[in-house]
């Protein structure tokens, strides 16, 4: 009788009971232990596997709930299903126990925080750039007066350069203030216009308050031109990102 299991993440087998919200396909998640490690799973009803927005959100909410009850959870990528519990044990939990335990220990004392640094007022920023740069102001006047294509391109190019320069400086400021407080960090390179920076920080739990307070002070300091938004604590999504090859497959 097939009993497919949807997998959310990996935790230590030992630990406080978890109070988990509804999961993917409205199933109730539970902890499936195998030796010293366990997977957070839920029954995946038969039929065509589908992923809808509600399932995506449920996956994330389950993981967050796990993190509230345990010191860490290794998040598994969305959409992973095993044929049944025996397959889960045989193919993942048993053969990879040592590695999973190592990872659980590594991330036990750390959480992820995601920081978005946003330009709440792009027009205002442009205004500042133009007002503060005589070359830009000149090109702006020229473009308005001549209306020529070339003048527009010239103005646009100079504006983009100034914008990127400003963004570079804003990101550097955030990096400078916050990275000394964290164990590890990632930064996204390609950013939409209104995003000055996007970071994932791996923060040691004992330093969490210090980090948040520093971020709050920074947010206040720059609030006239930047808005800071902090998400988390989260499981270490951005730091646990690699593949576990199937056991025996070489």
């Amino acid at each position, binding site marked *: 009788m097939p009993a497919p299991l949807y997998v959310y993440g990996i935790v230590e087998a030992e630990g406080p009971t978890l109070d988990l919200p509804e999961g993917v396909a409205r199933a109730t998640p539970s902890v499936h232990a195998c030796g010293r490690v366990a997977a957070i799973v839920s029954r995946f009803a038969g039929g065509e*596997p589908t992923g809808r927005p509600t399932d995506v959100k449920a996956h994330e909410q389950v993981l967050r709930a796990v993190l509230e009850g345990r010191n860490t959870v290794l998040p598994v990528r969305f959409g992973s299903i095993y044929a049944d519990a025996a397959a889960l044990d045989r193919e993942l939990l048993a053969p990879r126990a040592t590695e999973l335990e190592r990872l659980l220990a590594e991330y036990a004392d750390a959480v992820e925080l995601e920081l978005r640094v946003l330009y709440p007022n792009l027009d205002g920023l442009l205004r500042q750039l133009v007002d503060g740069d005589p070359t830009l102001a000149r090109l702006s006047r020229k473009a308005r007066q001549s209306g020529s294509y070339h003048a527009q391109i010239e103005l646009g190019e100079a504006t983009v350069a100034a914008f990127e320069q400003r963004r570079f400086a804003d990101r550097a400021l955030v990096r400078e203030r916050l990275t000394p407080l964290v164990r590890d960090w990632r930064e996204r390179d390609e950013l939409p216009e209104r995003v000055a920076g996007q970071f994932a920080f791996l923060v040691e739990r004992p330093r969490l308050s210090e980090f948040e307070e520093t971020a709050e002070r920074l947010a206040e300091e720059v609030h006239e031109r930047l808005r800071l938004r902090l998400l988390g604590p989260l499981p270490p999504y951005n730091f646990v990102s690699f593949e576990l090859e199937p056991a025996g497959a070489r």
Partner: protein
Amino acid sequence: MSSDGARFATRGTAAGYLQRGPNPSGLADVLDLILDKGLVIDAYVRVSVIGIEILTIDARIVIASVDTYLRFAEAVNRLDLAETNGKDLGDLEEDGAKKKVKGAIEGAGDKAKEKTQQVKERVGN
């Protein structure tokens, strides 16, 4: 400050400048986190994500291109024509279900929108 030494900081502070969200508020945030992050395990079957419009975010990326230059030039030109009407341009939190209020930069032509879509596809967002 935090109550009872709770593990997670309370929402907001007295000053309130740092926006807090232990709950990613939009689908965009969630997708950002879980779709291509985390352990990849050899599983029986992968669920594919359907019915999610990735196109919900205003995710125009500043890339060096003629379209971008024109768009920025237009935005600068508009600065002098009209006062911004004070509306917030919005941010990535919004699911995009709400139409973005158009500011100067966003009042771009179709060409720029097309470029946007190409860029989105290319960066795999």
